């Protein structure tokens, strides 16, 4: 299931054959993907699938055991300054120094990035409604997320990396974060990569999507092509079926008796052919939501997985 994408020459992040083991657990298994410049890249997967591990490799917080990671063409472990000065990062745990005040934190972060725009920072601070004299310790979770986002955005980074930016936050803050992502990508040439569970957010803002399941890449490519490559078919059989019909492109099968709902991926002609082989009729055909696609892929048993997809 290869989705044609931009060439790797244009890629801000180029990961090839990355594998990582923690003890006996294989956290990443031969993952390859390319993030094109100017795109919004959504990374989805269940908890523990390997999204944070992947993001840490991009930042150089983990060294690639096998395979390679290149960001802006450089190795983030060998050249931390060259890579990190162009990357804005918001971690899942909002890991901020709790003893600093907000204005101290802004002043401190400003010293690292020559591209820091004080007016933009001030505008964001007002937009996020943050009291400059408050200590980070006393801020609520949503406010801490906003502060973290502020210091990641204010120097207009070429690459914005967000690890679960909306986790644990109320809808108001989530909307603020989404707006900030849109504003970032609307500026020419800036790229965003974010991992999230909230698939409707991912659907709204991403151009490209990658889904990781148990350390392997099961989906990768443009969002609209992925959605168009999946179908929810309602099959009607002449005789009631005792067991779920064995359709080979099917990811999930539900139903009973004569009517069965199947979520499958692949070429339409191939699907029609398989359905005909089973001796059924397609009575309804719809494009499934990303939620359903995700759940269907995540529900696959380990043995049934195809070999890891390469995202070209």
């Amino acid at each position, binding site marked *: 299931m290869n989705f044609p994408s931009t060439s790797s020459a244009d890629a801000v992040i180029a990961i090839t054959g990355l594998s990582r083991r923690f003890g006996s657990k294989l956290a990443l298994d031969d993952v390859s993907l390319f993030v094109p410049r100017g795109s*919004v890249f959504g990374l989805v997967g269940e908890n523990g699938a390997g999204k944070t591990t992947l993001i840490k490799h991009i930042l150089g917080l983990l060294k690639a055991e096998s395979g390679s990671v290149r960001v802006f063409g450089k190795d983030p472990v060998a050249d931390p300054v060259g890579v990190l000065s162009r990357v804005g990062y918001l971690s899942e745990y909002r890991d901020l120094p709790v003893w600093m005040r907000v204005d101290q934190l802004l002043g401190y972060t400003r010293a690292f990035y020559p591209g820091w725009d004080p007016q933009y920072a001030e505008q964001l601070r007002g937009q996020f409604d943050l009291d400059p004299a408050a200590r980070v310790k006393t801020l609520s979770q949503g406010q801490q997320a906003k502060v973290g986002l502020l210091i990641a955005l204010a120097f207009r980074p070429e690459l914005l990396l967000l690890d679960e930016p909306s986790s644990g936050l109320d809808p108001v803050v989530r*909307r603020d974060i*989404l*707006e900030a992502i*849109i*504003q970032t*990508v*609307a500026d020419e040439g800036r790229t965003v990569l974010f991992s999230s569970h909230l698939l*409707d957010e991912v*659907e*709204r*803002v*991403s*151009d490209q999507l990658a889904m990781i399941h148990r350390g392997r890449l099961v989906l990768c490519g443009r969002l*609209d092509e992925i*959605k*168009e490559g999946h179908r929810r078919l309602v099959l009607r059989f002449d005789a009631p079926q005792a067991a779920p019909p064995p359709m080979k492109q099917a990811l999930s099968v539900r139903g009973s008796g004569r009517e069965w709902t199947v979520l499958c991926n692949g070429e339409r002609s191939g699907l029609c052919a398989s359905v005909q082989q089973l001796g059924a009729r397609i009575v309804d055909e*719809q*494009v*499934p*939501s*990303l*939620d359903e696609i995700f759940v269907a892929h995540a529900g696959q048993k380990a043995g049934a997985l195809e070999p890891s997809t390469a995202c070209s």
Partner: protein
Amino acid sequence: MQINISPKEGVPIYQQIVNQVKYLVASGRLSPGEEIPPIRALAEQLTINPNTVARAYLELERAGVVTKRHGSGTYVSESGSPLARRERVRILTRRIDALLAEAINMGIELDQIVDLLRERHAPMQTRTGK
């Protein structure tokens, strides 16, 4: 320009924008020559990817519903253009198809439908004074 999109609908987001803009133009809520918001503004308003909005605008331009003027934004095409009228007819045709399908399912004859249409049309005409 009031547009609502929903990612879960099963229709791609850009298509939803295209359909809604066409509807707004056809129903008169967007007058010919009126400016529609720039790509970035609409993207921020709806919190969706600007590329999606760009794609929708491209589609609308190809269909002739809007025109892009260099440097000054995107505007609704002039009315009286056969494309706008075609669009209106297309929307209505879809509704009529849905109505006819339901009528057939319920076993109502075509003559009964036409009579029903006339019956419902008369008071509406007097009400709107057209």
